[in-house]
């Protein structure tokens, strides 16, 4: 199988790394070669975080070259804009309808409210999901990453039972039911 390239982006604390790890684990379980690597700076929280996940018969570089990503999974709208250029022409961008303002002293310009319109105008296949709202309804805003992952899973060729098993093996038991629900909700929205 040729290599499938996914880029997961968000803000520190949004679960970018866990979502990518789950995807990488599911891809291995489905029999692929996988590489996954995240990029983040010094702080534990608040900065931009992104992670490449690549799977297929044989993966070399842990980073997908710019303009070759098939799926961008953005946990936040500004981050979708920041990494949009990694996506190939006509590629898919799934965006969480959620805004996290950067600290105001960094740059005085207002938050770009038209992020989704802009990405649409570039010819990408943009899908929006209110993942944080859904996660809050399910009882924990932190499950937004799993909602987004569910939406992505709907578009990937990894069997349902592999996803079920991956969630079961990787998510701690006390959070498993919440994440199962979040994943299911995401799948429905991703259709």
């Amino acid at each position: 199988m040729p290599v499938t390239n996914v880029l997961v982006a968000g803000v520190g604390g949004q679960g970018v790394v866990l979502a990518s790890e789950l995807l990488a684990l599911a891809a291995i379980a489905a029999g692929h070669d996988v590489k996954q690597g995240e990029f983040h700076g010094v702080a534990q929280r608040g900065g931009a975080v992104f992670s490449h996940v690549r799977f297929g018969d044989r993966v070399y570089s842990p980073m997908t070259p710019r303009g070759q990503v098939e799926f961008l999974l953005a946990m936040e709208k500004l981050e979708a804009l920041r990494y949009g250029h990694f996506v190939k022409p006509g590629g898919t961008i799934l965006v969480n309808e959620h805004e996290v303002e950067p600290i105001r002293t960094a740059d005085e310009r207002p938050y770009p409210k038209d992020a989704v319109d802009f990405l649409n105008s570039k010819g990408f296949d943009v899908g929006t999901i209110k993942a944080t709202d859904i996660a809050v309804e399910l009882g924990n805003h932190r499950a937004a990453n799993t909602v987004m992952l569910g939406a992505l899973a709907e578009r990937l060729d990894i069997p349902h039972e592999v996803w079920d098993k991956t969630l079961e093996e990787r998510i701690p038991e006390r959070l498993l039911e919440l994440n199962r629900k979040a994943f299911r909700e995401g799948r429905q929205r991703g259709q």
Partner: protein
Amino acid sequence: MKRLMSGNEAIARGAWESGVLFAAGYPGTPSTEVLEVLSTYDEVDAQWSTNEKVAFDECVGAALGGARTMVTMKHVGLNVAADPFMVFPYAGTNAGFVALVADDPGMYSSQNEQDSRYFAKIAKVPLLEPTDAREAREMVKIAFELSEQFETPVMFRTTTRLSHTRGVVEVGDRTEASRRPFSRKVSQYAIPVYARFRRPELEDKLNRLREFAEEFEGNIVDEGQGDVGVVSHGIPYQYVKEALPSATVFKLGMIYPLPKKRLQEFCERFEQVFVVEESEGFIEQEMASFGILNVIGKERFTNIGELSPDLVAQGLNGASTPTDFASETTILPRPPVLCPGCSHRGVLSTLNEMGVLVTGDIGCYTLGCLPPYKAIHTTFCMGASIGNATGFTKAGEAKVVGLIGDSTFLHSGLPSLISAVYNQVPTTTILLDNGTTGMTGHQQHPGTGSTLKHRPAPAVNYEALIKAIGVEHVEVIDPWDIEATERAIKSGLEHPGPAVVIARRACRLLPEVKATEKVPYQVDDAVCIQCEDCMQTGCPALVWEGDTPEIREWDCAGCAMCAHLCPVDAICQVEASVDASH
């Protein structure tokens, strides 16, 4: 069995499989997880040491004593451990000794870019470097064999990308290595007169290693098609395969010493050969010294920052790649910030307000040099703050504060404080005691009362220690108490000799602190005058919604730093405001 493992996990796994008995190091991104993972194996006695030199010395003892040993550090840690690193090869090791050194091209969490490969050449030790996690596990095992075969320490280098990339790793079982008895041959381990005999022997050993490099199976040519030849190593090798899957690539697993004859033969096959390496042109320079000059290297592949598949493709075939959308839309920067409830915030805002000169150190609080805190004026390396403060005072600055975290203080701040006491320098040191090594992800240290293996340990009593070295003015405050913080710093600066303020509050992200109940704050929109003073906290829990600030209740730690800055008392505790409305 196949597993998803990061480079660091794979290195730890390989070390465990090699029969490692003792491992030591000091946390430093991107190396930290190697020792953390090693500590999870029952057979391995793994520990955090106070600093990298101490860890290295301990590991030298363990390896001479006959136990297979690994020492771990980031690139700047090797600078701290450079003394034993350069001397140990003269003696040579008894049991296998591998020094894991992780470089950070791109400076994701470092103050400098340093190509540590040069250290191997200076120390005359073999250097191995894998190209992914799968290879890392296998190569660590080879490193231990090599170390015992040649009785030499082996340097094992990774980079941030290799350490932090997960991949598919085939794992194996542990093979116990038998303990090798130590022979007390003083002529091998002591004083210059003996070292002079050892010196030519070291050169002989290096020559034997050069011969070994010619045969080493980790130096391998991927035969391709066409007339493009490439020499590469480490993560850049993967970028080369990505850009030119059919090129003929000489993949080097042993970076020092290099296989001279094989490289000469390889390069004779091509009109020109690309040498693709990250950071400096180390391989290119070595090849030039072998007389290989038909090379395209650093003029195409920058020595600044981290390489990428895009940069490598550009250098190999001139490919151009898309740029970001910053020129067409607003892409606001998202700089890292201190967490909600961070115990450093109060100290930084107080220092900013006081306007004193502050020399900083290495930790989360390093962010204090950025807006909105703007409190720190210099940051160099581990433990530098106190010495730098002394220097500024000697140059005539009247009031200088050195700012240092607890783990960093124990790492290398203490000798500087002793020097300041000895020379009676009137600086004030603020010891930010948050009870952990925060920035690298909560590692234990000698002040935390617990070890890497989660065993209880005596905790350093900072007050007693600092008084014992002769500091007369020592005060402990809670940095959430802004008035007390300001008072203590002022009083420290007025003291005629060296003073220490210990700002003690546990890191907000420690699990035991997270579990404690917190009373969040909220903004009363009716009282708020939209002055934005509260936003100066740079707190992620505080966001600007429409025309007013809003506090995300689930994120608020209840530290009240924002309430302290509010000129009209519009910010109060959630419960308190409910009470007031009744």
